[in-house]
């Protein structure tokens, strides 16, 4: 029986021709990633192992992005520990404030992930790089420590779920709507322990930024990874960002999938996930009256240049509703600069939004936009769990940049399609 794309990548990194679902393997790692929350624990564990050096200083990336710029003394201490470790162990890919971006937007942008790579990161959204045809998955700090020391990781080979994408999405529908639609369909544990593998001619209509968003939220369906086939768009992206030469893997035609879904992208509606789970989704047509206090546009899910362009298209020349706080977070310095050059930042500020330096801050309720008791936000982030953005009695609604921006103008969750008709 044939293998999935993910199984091929795992087999190649385990030095074998074939693997089967459920098999436990040891595999070579191409990149090991950590941030200012997970790396301090990993560093502590790494030191216990007693190795003088990391397995390959060019294959470790440390990105202080969560509680940075340092939000308090304890966070500053954690960042200091990461910084000192990077210096002492000569880690090549350490990104200080000023060049730092949100890790999962930053690594592809810096060309640190290529097609066919095997990447682990002590952050659950490490699955983002599946957009590039890499196997990447989130792990914990101890796995990160072990990876830094040995260059190897243990994996249970996942089975796969096949998503056949057909058709072309409508103008205001983007990767976020597609992945929320899928999570709503299969549930937050619908892909537990499995790979979400995308197939079909609909993929050609998805930009790289759309694909990053879709791969990013695989974890919200419980998946081990989400992965796209490598096409001309992928190769062009990798070339533009100076990545190492791609290793192109593909699923066998007779690959065995435990489940198969077909999704006609032309039928996907702008989609919103209501509190408190990402699978609690509704079409924009069924949202009803949901007034909001805050709008967050950014994160590793939706802080890329296309996301900002979409938001700016909605906000340009208009005014944010009175009483709504809008915070825009470009995901990296490069994206920020590009947005500046294109006049997007001007559109945001003139509309009444605050624009921030890159940080994960509000997405996980860290800092820079925490919600008070009873407050409600619509956010382009990835989780809407209880207390995720602040007070345990606050609410987060997940949506696309277009829906978030339209909601900023309306003061309630709104449909960007209606805006266009005005």
């Amino acid at each position, binding site marked *: 029986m044939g293998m999935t794309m993910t199984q091929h990548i795992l087999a190649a990194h385990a030095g074998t021709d074939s693997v089967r679902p459920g098999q436990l393997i040891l595999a070579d790692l191409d990149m090991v990633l950590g941030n200012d929350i997970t790396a301090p624990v990993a560093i502590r564990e790494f030191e216990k192992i007693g190795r003088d050096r990391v397995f390959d200083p060019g294959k470790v990336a440390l990105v202080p992005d969560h509680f940075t710029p340092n939000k308090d003394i304890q966070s500053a201490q954690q960042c200091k520990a990461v910084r000192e470790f990077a210096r002492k162990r000569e880690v090549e890919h350490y990104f200080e404030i000023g060049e730092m971006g949100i890790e999962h937007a930053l690594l592809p942008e810096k060309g640190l992930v290529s097609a066919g790579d095997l990447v682990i990161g002590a952050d659950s959204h490490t699955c983002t790089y599946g957009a590039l045809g890499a196997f990447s998955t989130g792990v914990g700090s*101890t796995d990160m420590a072990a990876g830094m020391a040995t260059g190897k990781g243990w994996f249970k080979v996942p089975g796969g779920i096949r998503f056949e994408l057909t058709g072309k999405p409508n103008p205001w529908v983007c990767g976020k709507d597609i992945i929320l639609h899928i999570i709503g369909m299969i549930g937050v544990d619908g892909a537990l322990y499995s790979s979400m593998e995308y197939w079909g001619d609909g993929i050609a209509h998805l930009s790289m930024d759309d694909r990053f968003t879709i791969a990013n939220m695989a974890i919200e369906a419980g998946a081990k990874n989400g992965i796209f086939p490598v096409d001309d768009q992928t190769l062009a992206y990798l070339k533009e960002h100076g990545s190492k030469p791609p290793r192109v893997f593909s699923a066998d035609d007779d690959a065995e999938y435990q489940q198969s879904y077909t999704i006609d992208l032309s039928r996907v509606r702008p989609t919103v996930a209501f509190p408190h789970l990402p699978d609690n989704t509704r079409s924009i047509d069924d949202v009803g009256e949901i007034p909001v206090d805050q709008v967050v546009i950014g994160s590793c899910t939706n802080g890329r240049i296309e996301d900002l362009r979409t938001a700016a298209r909605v906000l340009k020349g208009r005014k944010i509703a009175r009483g709504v706080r809008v915070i825009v977070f470009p995901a990296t310095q490069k994206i920020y600069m590009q947005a500046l050059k294109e006049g997007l930042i001007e559109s945001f500020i003139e509309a009444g939004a605050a624009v921030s330096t890159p940080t994960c801050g509000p997405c996980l309720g860290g800092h820079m936009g925490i919600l008070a008791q009873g407050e409600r936000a619509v956010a382009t982030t990835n989780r809407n769990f209880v207390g995720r953005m602040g007070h345990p009695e606050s609410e987060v609604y997940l949506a696309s940049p277009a829906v978030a921006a339209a909601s900023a103008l309306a003061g309630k969750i709104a449909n960007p399609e209606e805006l266009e008709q005005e």
Partner: protein
Amino acid sequence: MKAKGRVFRYKDNVDTDVIIPARYLNTSDPDELAGHCMEDLDPSFVQRVKPGDVIVADRNFGCGSSREHAPLAIKSSGVSCVIARTFARIFYRNSINIGLPILECPEAVEGISEGDEVEVDFDTGEIRNLTQGTGWKAEPFPEFMQGLIKADGLIEYIKQGGLS
């Protein structure tokens, strides 16, 4: 190795944000983390939990963030074992890597209520509900994972020459 304790019974999709909210992630000190364990789901957990107690939950326990602070907080609060219908995959591997015993056993989850006293034998996978006089057997871990658990986690396993 055996554990015995009272049960804290939770439902589906207990996420790592409620196990340890991000506002406390500016530290990784296990005792400090334990002081806020389960805070946004069960604010009285910290006052009520005793060494040896057992968490029993339905599907997808530990979903969401990869923060190892979540199993660390649970382990450090004195909980001896987590039994669930299913675990989210990162929580699952984190627990094994740090030596927090976990068992997947849907039948046991079905037959255990809040406050029951249970006894778990990690060597055999046997779970006994002492309050209701019932028992089950969880699937044993694959040999490789048993090696990790016996070594008291991944770091000790590597120190003993594993993973190379």
